[in-house]
């Protein structure tokens, strides 16, 4: 059985947002909803200062703290280890226990407008935006329809820095598995032991 995973090389991420826009374009998420976001961190004092960019997205945890918190059983693991939220079952009121339970803060609640432009929607946009219900909890699913069709997630393909490597963690020869085993690849918050599929690598430290 395969387990999809992602390694992000923080030495290569330049904080350019191409991944975030590729995600929007592919998944037609609503205004204000981001399945991937960039965290920027500055350390030190000028001129001895370093800056890092960390793309944050659902880590597809094997232990799924979010699912454990969900009273309605709306979150489950699908083939390939991808964590999916069932839109029909997800129907909590204003309080969303999963959102608070996720240690990475990557669950997004649709709470803004229901489309970017109103009177100017193309037929595709109309359909796509309608599939995102107001109030629903959403998150990255590694572009599930794409990966099951054999494509890379949209963010991985778009990234101008080639900072992301996607693949099957169980396929030992894959670039991903090599990267994850051979270097300093670590999931965020390793201490939590939630068995994430997203790893962060730092191949090169900025001066």
């Amino acid at each position, binding site marked *: 059985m395969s387990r999809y995973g992602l390694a992000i090389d923080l030495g290569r991420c330049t904080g350019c*947002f191409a991944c975030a*826009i590729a995600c929007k374009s592919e998944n037609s998420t609503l205004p204000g909803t981001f399945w991937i976001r960039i965290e920027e961190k500055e350390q030190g004092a000028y001129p001895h200062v370093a*800056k890092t960019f960390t793309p944050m997205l659902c880590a597809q945890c094997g232990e799924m703290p979010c699912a454990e918190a969900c009273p309605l059983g709306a979150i489950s693991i699908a083939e390939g280890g991808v964590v999916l939220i069932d839109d029909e079952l997800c129907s909590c009121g204003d309080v969303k226990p999963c959102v608070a339970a996720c240690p990475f803060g990557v669950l997004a609640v649709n709470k803004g407008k229901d489309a970017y432009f109103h009177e100017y929607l193309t037929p595709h946009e109309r359909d796509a935006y309608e599939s995102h219900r107001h109030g629903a909890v959403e998150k990255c699913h590694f572009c599930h329809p794409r990966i099951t069709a054999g494509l890379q997630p949209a963010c991985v393909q778009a990234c101008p820095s080639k900072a992301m490597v996607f693949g099957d963690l169980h396929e030992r020869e894959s670039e991903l598995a090599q990267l994850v085993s051979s270097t300093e690849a670590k999931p965020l918050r390793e201490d939590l032991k939630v068995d994430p599929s997203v790893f962060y690598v730092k191949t090169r430290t900025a001066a």
Partner: protein
Amino acid sequence: MNDGTEKIFSYCIHCAALCGVVAHVKDGYLVKVEGDPEASNNGGTLCPKGLSAKQEIYHPERLKHPMRRTRPKGNADPGWVRISWDEALDTIAEKMKEIKERYGPEAFFFQKGSTDGSSGAEWYRFFNRLGSLYGSPNFGGTGHICCYSRSCPGLPLHLGNKGLHPAIDYEKTNLILLVGYNILHTKPPLARKILDAQRRGAKLIVVDPLLSPTAAKADIWLALRPGTDLALFLALHHVIIQERLYDADFLTSWTNAPFLVREDNGQFLDGGGAPYRVWDSKRGEPYPADPWFPSDVQPALTGSYTVNGIRCKPAWQLFAEMVEPCSPEWAQEVTWVAAEEIRSVARLYATTKPASTDWYNGLHRSSNGYYTAVALTLLSVVTGNWDVPGGLSFESDVSFRDVKGSEFLPRDWVEKSLVTAAGFKVRAHNKEYVGPMNLVADAILTERPYPIRGMLSLASGLATSNPNSKRMMEALSQLEFLAVGDMWEIPAMAMADIVLPCATAWESEFVNFNPPYLMYRQPIVKPQHESWPDLKIVFELAKRLGYAKQFWDGSPQKAFDQMLEPFKLTVAELAALPKGVRFEPPQPRHKIYAAIDQKTGKPKGFATPTGRLEIYSEKLKSLGYDPLPYWREPEPGPVSTPELFREFPLILSSGFKPMYWLHGQMRAVPWLRECQEEPLIWINRRTASKLDIHEGEQLLVETPKRDGTVQGFIRLKALLTESVPPEVVYIPYGWWQSCESLGLKGHGTLDGSANVNNLYDDSFTDPLSGTIGMASYPCRVRKE
């Protein structure tokens, strides 16, 4: 896919990178664009701007039809009424004819902004042609605020590289020196190549006062005082000469370093039937150079000699004397970079082969930009990194047939140009961008050297993208006739008589390289509303002005065929294939200069005045400038204009751009605007705490004019950071537009706006090229 989605291969021309894309189109609507994995340039990747095509095309706030003003200028509401394209173009053509008749062709200005704008820089050559046929030398461009001495036209007097862009082989280079160039964001397809080079062990050295995303990835970040790059490079030269790290063979064989320069007049010593002479140390006498000399001559690079009673020195000796006082310790005082760091970078740079360098806006927007570029590129020359694979090399000039139509211009067009009148002699000599917007504004307002009465502007921000926005707006308001085309209602349209809705690049056609293909780029969807591609506007206008014959009977397709002649291909042949015809632009060929010219039997050399790379420029000397890149402070600046810094103590730098913006464009696109919703002023934490400024507080930023009175003020929210020095604030430029979709209002252009260009007096210029001094501008900041 079998759901009726069609894949159209195309390329993005939002920036000069030209990324290959696949557009997914269903029922005539664009569903999405992705990077084309087969495109060798971007290899399937795509930047935020390209990815957002859909939101640009279907944006509800685009201009939808041509309009005419019904109320007098100055009225808050121009009273726009919808008109037909026929009426719009007939009016423009009529006004153009009238102005030409009454004041001469030079009284009409053809303005065009940066790459992209609406449908990219591709069609600009035809706009140029229109201007040439009309007879006006005054067409715009962005050389004065962008990249004059890099590629527009570059440094032909020193390097002979006219109009060519540096093209670095990142697979071969072992050191990358970048100056004022946030390359990882502004040339997205190069990001992965540079990061790969670094992974391979190549060193990345970034010169930038600000911790840009590119500087954040550097192995060595040289954080210097804005505008002092020249001092840094002179100090690098100092160390390289002192420690004898230069390539004496290369200097002797291929540069004018050994040419004897007369002490009395600074000209090269001629004689012996040749225009130049060197001092042959073997024979102990001068030897003629034409500019070549036999290999048994051993020319001296240093020393002082007397020939026929004339005292002279080799050019290299003069160069060495110039950098002699520029020690790393001296440079530390000037640049704030530690002397030891300068020394070690000089050694690293000079001993790592091959070492490349590239530079951009950050270097040019300064009153000392021209000499800064000279000193930087000479680093490549003196260390033997010039034109070697992985060193500093330039793109090959194999290209489309030129259709700019310069042959139609009156003979005296350069003499009649505004740069000649303004005394920017190098620019006049190079015949590039001779009618920049800032000089046009002067001519409109002062009627000197002659009045400019009319203007057609396409794809230009005009007042928001040019420094001294107030003066730009005032000048526009004085025009007898102004027509402006764009995708959006830009602030300058407040002064327009006619407004034209332009199509996006995605809705227009052209031919171009999209390696590994030469492609006919068809519109991926039809132009929305009544918008027209700029290309069509130019062609239709040409017909109305009586230039149909010179405009291929109004057929862009026939024009493309002519452009394609060097490839022996027609547009029909390209259009017949989904990606066009396979064509790899030739790899840069190295050392063409060393090839023997069949006609003369001598090396081809360089397209410079002497035929060699020029360490010492006699041409500059004869134009009245320093022949060598002596240190000069940026103007304005804390050292050159201390009186302005007394009341405006901070240094304003407008600095780098992130990947999701291109100049002043795209703030209306909501996907992109969500990356950064509002403009911010970056201020150092220590400075902020002294001024009692907190994160997110609204600040008022004011700057002076040359005479110390207030030039203008703008308002922005504070971002506290350590990415800028305590003495410097960074304000990104290009902010004016609203984004209704996200409920974000427009910012305006002038006082009280967020437009940093409102803060500059544009009279501080580089005396050679006319680029405008903005790198180190005085400002003061306070809470409101």
